[in-house]
């Protein structure tokens, strides 16, 4: 029952949101695009000028570019797999009747309240540090050698830290979905002799599809731009073993002070995000409508 005037009013009400987001997106994007074709180094301002595609070709020819691209996707994929799988298991566990459900949930969501720089520095110093970290102490206590987490397994360590930060989010969404599942359906299946695994596979998992979609969508958006955790812990190293696209861009902008190259990297990152978004929407977007 929407009249012409309510429709017009409705448009008007959406307008501010669309307008500010459009500006927030388009102005920096246009500037980045412009810089990406310019020679623009803060250390040699006198050489400013158009430079064609050289900023882009520099990136594609950089020895660690493909590694950084791979690491970026590995970080997103790794964290998604870990948080969805562990989140599902934990949700199944704490959905059972247990004593102290309230306090239990508080403990599980705690990592969500820890800001990324703090999370990264706790893990780096208090746990993973080869001399003073708790893991090293445990390893020595067991008579072994401390593992050099950030030196020997930089990507795995970063994925572990980021997974810890995102686990509460995945767990909570999956738990909420689980709680809306009718118990009659499960009991009926149980009476018909369906095993626990089959009940999970054919009843619980299909019910959670939408929740998993939300987890994957939201997390991907945040994970593609992950930067702070790497900056705090490995700084892309050792060498460039844990370099990612965002970190590579950061290094060009802040360390090399080459705005042109950083901008080209930025455009590449935007294209990558669009490709990922495209496949994401094609693959799981339909789950969102139901």
């Amino acid at each position, binding site marked *: 029952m929407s009249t012409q005037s309510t429709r017009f009013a409705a448009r008007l009400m959406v307008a501010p949101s669309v307008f500010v987001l459009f500006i927030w997106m388009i102005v920096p*994007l246009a500037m980045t695009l412009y810089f990406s074709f310019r020679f623009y180094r803060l250390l040699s301002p006198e050489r400013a000028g158009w430079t064609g595609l050289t900023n882009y070709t520099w990136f594609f020819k950089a020895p660690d570019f493909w590694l950084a691209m791979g690491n970026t996707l590995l970080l997103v994929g790794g964290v998604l797999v870990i948080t969805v799988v562990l989140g599902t298991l934990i949700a199944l566990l704490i959905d059972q009747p247990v004593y102290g459900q309230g306090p239990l949930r508080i*403990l599980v969501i*705690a990592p969500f309240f820890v800001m990324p720089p703090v999370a990264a520095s706790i893990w780096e110093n208090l746990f993973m540090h080869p001399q003073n970290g708790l893991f090293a102490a445990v390893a020595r206590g067991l008579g072994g050698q401390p593992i050099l987490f950030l030196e020997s397994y930089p990507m795995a360590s970063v994925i572990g830290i980021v997974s810890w930060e995102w686990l509460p989010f995945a767990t909570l969404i999956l738990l909420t979905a689980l709680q809306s599942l009718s118990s009659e359906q499960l009991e009926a299946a149980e009476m018909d002799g369906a095993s626990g695994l089959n009940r999970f596979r054919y009843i619980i998992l299909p019910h959670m599809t939408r929740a998993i979609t939300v987890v994957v969508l939201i997390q991907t958006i945040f994970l593609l731009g992950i930067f702070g955790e790497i900056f705090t812990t490995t700084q892309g190293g050792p060498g460039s073993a844990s370099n990612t696209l965002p970190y590579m861009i950061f290094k060009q902008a802040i360390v090399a002070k080459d705005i042109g190259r950083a901008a080209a990297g930025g455009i590449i990152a935007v294209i990558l995000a669009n490709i990922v978004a495209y496949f994401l929407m094609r693959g799981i977007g339909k789950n969102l409508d139901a």
Partner: protein
Amino acid sequence: MARATTPRRKALTTLAAWSVALIIFFPVLWMILTSFKTEASAVASPPEFLGASWTLENYAEVWSRSDYPRFFWNSVVISVGSTLLGLVIAIPAAWSMAFVPGKKTKDLLMWMLSTKMMPAVAVMIPIYLLFQWLGIYDSKIGLVIALMLMNLPIIVWMLYTYFKEIPGEILEAARMDGAGLWNEVVYVLAPMAVPGIASTVLLNVILAWNEAFWTITLTTTKAAPLSAFIASFSAPQGLFYAKLSAASTMAIAPILILGWFSQKQLVRGLTFGAVK
């Protein structure tokens, strides 16, 4: 999905669930414990638990070495301010998307969300230059605007899903009774939407509080919030664990306490209203 179980089974699941919860929570707990130890005790090997020498000195020193109240206040202003400003812009949009949906509503929502996919690092320099040029670099208002824009898609999306659950007939009835748009929003919609709005506010305050890229990139001293405060304490690694832990605890404590007290709203907020 609550089902009848035996006490024995409940005890076993309780044990398993609490073990998992404590493992997840342990890093935070260990940080808090370390913050009360002396520096020597903090790095002792084997690690000291109950026998450690406890002290409040780390907090005293962090307090005296930096202007914690100012960082704290900046964090409060920036996270609450950006969320409220976001609400003002998002509520009308979410309202009209939920109650006067058009063919393009879904696409519009997805587009809004997609603006968040642009990696912050990619547009760091332009935003930095723009903020300098507009004279809002290192100002609280600048960060309020930046974080509002960052969280706006999420605020719109969350409100949209909450509003959609409000039956449209009630609004139509109000309209029949002659309520104008403004009255409809203020007297009919708002009271029903309060829980959803509360969850939205809570989640976005936390997201803004924990934001550490723009808050560090766009500030130097005046407007720097707690994320920058903690960055300044990241001493040479492997050193001053107790002080680092104390500063870290001080940075996350306000939001940890807020989150724990409002757990129920937060859980609803975290699900983005998208999962039932």
